[in-house]
């Protein structure tokens, strides 16, 4: 049929039958039927084009053209970790290379009773029920207001689901160490693709800090991660995702969060890498008195495209959300911000604040911003503000009047613009390392 319509075949569909049996060895047994359903849903939509509203500004032609191959294991040594900004931070680490679990790069410390951080297949059997109950259920827009068709990459990820990472913190427990989920691409076939998958469950009143990092050791890749987060009542998660893949890589991620009463979710979404980086972060706030913080710092140079889509569904009353997205663009880089906030009929007293700021350092850099507030309740406070521009003249003059040279004052202000977001990260080692990396990226 494809040939009749004269459309190119989809590389992710064509090779699937051969890879499926290899996938079925990985993860938990129930993954197998998820994969089967997912490849069918993916096939319905395929690779998006710019005619698809949700991908209007971001071309994913590379996925059609670059002939990415499914990633199998590659050797990455502990010594290689020094190459990565967060490679050596002290954390409970679970590493994956080309999507495959890398035990030699992971922590094997004893975990407190009832807590689990590791692969799905090694999870204790008493957790299997909890995993199966949530897995794939959070990453869905089914039945949501104004649903869009951008779930295709969730389907692609699930179709190629191999091993998954699971973080499970039981009721009332705080995981003391930061948890680092590290995804390394070490290209073995001139374009390697991988589909990292994470499930984070924080039970009632549990607390954790999770960092996901996406980096490239050599070559380039296509990384298509899906992370599902479930926060039970009063749970608190700081969730930092740091994407710094090589500048010819493609990154298309989906993060879905489900929040119950009084839970606090903080996202720090940091993007320095990728030729094309597209992130969707969707928070469904389904309990009262929740807080949702979405922070983001992005730097695009050269021909980089950085596209962030966020969506907050306020389904219950008395919740607050604060969103601050910042982007620095230079050369011919392009940025996209699409921020959707839905306030459901029941969600009275919602307080949602969205800001999106971009600094363009070259006349050829472009930023496309689209805030989308859809409010169906009457007693709410929702604000959004977007600024796209150059550096503040007043701040620049202030620095220069104190003796700081113009060029240095400019770079200081550019740095500060993004550093303001990094400063919020509550894991000092991560904050410091990312600030240093930001400094290098801008140098």
């Amino acid at each position: 049929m494809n040939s009749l319509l004269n459309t190119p075949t989809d590389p992710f569909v064509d090779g699937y039958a051969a890879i499926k049996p290899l996938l079925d060895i990985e993860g938990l047994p129930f993954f197998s039927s998820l994969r089967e359903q997912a490849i069918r849903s993916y096939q319905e939509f395929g690779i998006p084009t710019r005619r698809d509203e949700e991908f209007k500004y971001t071309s994913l032609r590379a996925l059609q053209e670059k002939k990415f191959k499914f990633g199998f294991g590659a050797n990455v040594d502990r010594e290689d970790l020094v190459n990565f900004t967060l490679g050596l931070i002290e954390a409970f680490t679970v590493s994956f290379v080309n999507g495959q679990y890398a035990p030699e790069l992971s922590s094997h410390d004893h975990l407190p009773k009832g807590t689990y951080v590791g692969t799905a297949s090694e999870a204790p059997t008493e957790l299997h029920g909890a995993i199966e109950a949530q897995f794939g259920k959070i990453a869905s827009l089914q039945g949501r207001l104004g649903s869009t068709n951008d779930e295709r990459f969730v389907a692609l990820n699930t179709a190629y689901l191999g091993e998954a990472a699971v973080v499970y913190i039981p009721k009332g427990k705080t995981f003391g160490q930061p948890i680092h989920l590290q995804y390394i691409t070490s290209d073995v076939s001139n374009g390697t693709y991988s589909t990292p998958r994470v499930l984070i469950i924080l039970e009632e009143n549990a607390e954790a800090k999770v960092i996901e990092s996406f980096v490239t050791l050599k070559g380039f890749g296509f990384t298509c991660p899906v992370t599902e987060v479930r926060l039970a009542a009063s749970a608190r998660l700081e969730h930092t995702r740091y994407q710094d893949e090589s500048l010819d890589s493609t990154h298309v991620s989906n993060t879905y969060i489900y929040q119950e009463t009084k839970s606090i979710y903080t996202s720090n979404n940091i993007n320095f890498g990728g030729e094309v980086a597209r992130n969707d972060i969707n928070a469904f706030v389904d309990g009262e008195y929740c807080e949702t913080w979405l922070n983001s710092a992005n730097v695009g140079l050269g021909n980089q495209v950085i596209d962030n889509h966020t969506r907050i569904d306020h389904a219950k009353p008395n919740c607050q959300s604060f969103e601050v997205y910042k982007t620095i663009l230079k050369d011919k880089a392009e940025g996209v911000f699409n921020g959707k906030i839905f306030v459901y009929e029941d969600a009275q007293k919602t307080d949602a604040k969205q800001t999106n700021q971009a600094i363009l350092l070259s006349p050829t850099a472009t930023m496309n911003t689209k805030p989308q507030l859809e409010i169906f309740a009457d007693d709410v406070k929702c604000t959004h503000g977007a600024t796209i521009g150059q550096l503040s003249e007043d701040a620049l003059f202030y620095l220069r009047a104190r003796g700081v040279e113009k060029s240095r004052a400019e770079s200081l202000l550019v740095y500060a613009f993004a550093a303001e977001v990094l400063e919020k990260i509550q894991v000092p080692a991560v904050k410091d390392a990312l600030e240093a990396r930001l400094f290098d990226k801008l140098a």
Partner: protein
Amino acid sequence: MLTISNLHASVEEKEILRGVNLTVKAGEVHAIMGPNGSGKSTLASVLAGKSDYDVTEGSVDFDGKDLLELDPEERAAEGLFLAFQYPVEIPGVTNTYFLRSAVNSIRKYRGQVDISAKDFMALVKVKAAMMELDPSMLSRSVNEGFSGGEKKRNEIFQMAVLEPKLCVLDETDSGLDIDALKVVANGVNALRSPERATLVITHYQRLLDYIVPDFVHVLVDGRIVKSGGKELAFELEAKGYDFIKEELAAKA
């Protein structure tokens, strides 16, 4: 040290300074007073090199250099310091980092090597103590979330660290409580020396009790219309600006 001759400046085609003449010698303290909108901050901004203002006529000589030819950072490096009427907030840049960049940029301009981290911290500590500045403010972003009074105090703290030749204070006293006013005045006086000079812009005679001027000038409609000793400040405080305007009208 500073010779301003027939200085005219406009913003957006509107002439604000209309022929200012002023000479400040080393060791002197000059006060400039004048009604709102008369051009005091404009004069300070033109001296510091803000690009919003077009200088259409006149010249400014600063220790033998043509000040108007210099970039703002060069003016600072030559020893000019402006304490802003409205200090700017700079989120994401800590006070310490900012000041160290300033100190090192100025040192570079003067052909000196960077100050060591240790010496810098020692210097900052001494000056912060003198300005009774809470040390936690040093690690906060420049002026961000500072109260009005804290911002002013922070300006004088920066001045104390940079030790300029010519200090221009633009309404540094406004927004300060009585105790803070004394601290700020002490900071300014600590810098007084035969090699330095100070230009104080203020609306209130009160500040001049603490920073005692050698000369007081009155700026009206972009011109210095009257100069005198410190007693002129008392006269202005008592009578307001009307008597000067009347004098002017009588002359015209």
